[in-house]
């Protein structure tokens, strides 16, 4: 039909994606720095032996903990938000989009906590495991 009704649809008011987009860029930028530092420290810094003892020492060092926590959390955010963007390209409904975002947040938070327990086991557990 050649006649088209002009007008404003109701769906226009959206949740917005500005913060997600900004965080994606920020996390990407910080990840580059963290990754570079991580590689430098691991391969060129101090004790480079990959033995349990040196790992435990690293995990008791505040700088390592900060860098690795950053890598963990930001890497997860960056990756999962990237995944979300790929899936959203397939024209999900408003509801499916929200479900996806919620699920990814839960996955992300769980993985961060799970990863953190490993990271912090020596730091927090200096008392627990001795050391």
């Amino acid at each position, binding site marked *: 039909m*050649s*006649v*088209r*009704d*002009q*007008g404003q649809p109701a769906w226009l008011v959206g949740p917005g994606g500005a913060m997600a987009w900004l965080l994606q860029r920020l996390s990407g930028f910080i990840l580059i720095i963290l990754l570079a530092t991580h590689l430098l420290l691991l391969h060129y810094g101090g004790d480079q032996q990959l033995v349990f003892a040196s790992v435990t020492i690293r995990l008791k060092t505040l700088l390592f903990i900060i860098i690795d926590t950053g890598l963990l959390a930001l890497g997860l955010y960056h990756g999962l938000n990237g995944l979300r963007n790929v899936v959203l390209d397939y024209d999900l409904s408003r509801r499916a989009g929200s479900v996806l975002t919620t699920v990814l947040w839960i996955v992300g938070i769980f993985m961060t906590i799970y990863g953190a327990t490993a990271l912090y086991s020596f730091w927090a557990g200096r008392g627990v495991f001795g050391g």
Partner: protein
Amino acid sequence: MPSMYHQVLIVGGGLAALRAAIEAKDAGLGVAVFTRVHPVRSHSVAAQGGVNGALANAEKGADDTIEKHAFDTVKGSDFLADQPAAITMTADAPKRIIEMEHWGCPFSRTSDGKIAQRPFGGAGYPRTCYAADKTGHALLHTMYEQAVKRNIKVYEEWTVLSLVVENGVCRGVIALDLRDGDIHPIGADAVIFGTGGTGRVYGRSTNSIIVTGSGMAIAYQAGVPLKDLEFIQFHPTSLFGNNVLITEAARGEGGYLRNVNGDRFMEKYAPKAMELGPRDIVARSIQTEINEGRGFPGGYVALDLTHLGAQKILERLPAIRDISINFVGIDPIEKPIPIQPGQHYTMGGIDTDVDGATTLKGFYAAGECACVSVHGANRLGGNSLLETIVFGQRAGAHASQYVKGNGRGRPSEDLLFDKLHEVRGRWERLRAADGPEDPAAIRDEMKATMIEKVGIFRDAQKMTDAVETVKRLQDRYQKVHVNYRGRRFNLDLLRTFELGMKLQLAEVIARGALDRKESRGSHARTDYKDRDDANWLKHTMAHHTPGGPRFDYKPVEITKWQPEARRY
């Protein structure tokens, strides 16, 4: 299926049509626009140089006034314009231009932020407001945006085939939906045409391919007289080869015209105004240079912008540069553009008053399809865009008033369907047409005849030939064949139908021109070289009869300025 009905039905999607639609919608009426192409594809979009209004924004134009604008218009028209109409247009000009600015039109700006104005041919002051060299594009897109804002219903790719008239009152139209080939009757309380000019009756035209004159022909067939149709403007500068328009702004910004010897020949023809003489004079000067052997081989002269410098060209004339590079491979920053005069504008048209009203009640026209008359025998550059926004608004306002006072509501189904059957009958006969004649050959011959014999320079012999040729072509058209009989998007059939209307208009143009035994504005006869105010200071009125046009004449309204010699 019951017929459609709209209180105000607008035909056309260009500036005048949309402006009328906006006015009627704002008056609270039910409005619909029927247009052969999407509104932003309309020919208004191709206007380049600008729109005139005495805003006095330019330094050199500080003491410009409405009255001076009106006088320039009347003098430019070779005194054939109706002076009250010219005054009305120029008085409305600042209002309408400011309104377009308030609606968002991206005009170019002066250093203090006002709408920029440039000099144009035949004008005493820089009063042509512009948006680079894409003013028509800027205005039309802005106008369409306003139509979208108002949620005006647009029927795209519908073309009107006929008016519906009942006892001397226009009651609707019969229209074709190009996409499925169905023909529909549509009732209306008022119909406003903004259907554009007749450019494509001519060869060597700067106009869009859709500028077929159909609107004028439909009005003419419904008994509305056509006024001054023999006055056809030839634009001095169209690109040599395909006749794409090269705006007058190129000269307004300081471009020179040079012949093969490199001379600025305009000093012979308009020593004061030079390249900025009015269009009829500059076009004739160029053609004279070419005819007398001072053109370049093939028949063109050079439009030299090289001295303007890259910055000015890039800023003020970017579209011209694109066109030139694209179509002839010449960058005007480095080399002159090859140009020749080309058919550009139809000064005449459907006879209307300053409110767009015609002799047919409930039927209005505005823009190039109408003849108010403000352009008389020669239109000034920048006045056509102005005409569309001024008289579009006036026609919309007056039609709304008419509908509120005299609206009769839905016309009877009998009336609409009787007319539908008649039009559909004609359409179906053409769809089945299986004669020996090729419509493309007829079209080509018509265009060649018109530009050659009713062109820039005219005489009795050539025009008599033209009238005979057009008559012969009309006869051949009766034996035409169409190549495609399908319904959906049948361009072959539509173009053949339009050809029939073009041939009618060609006859009106050629006969009107032949009868007018003087030279005035764009109508330049080598056998009657002078203007003859004693006998010919009058409007030609062509009335439709089955045997061809019947002519009579109407006096010109001269209220302020007595005709004088035109020197520039």
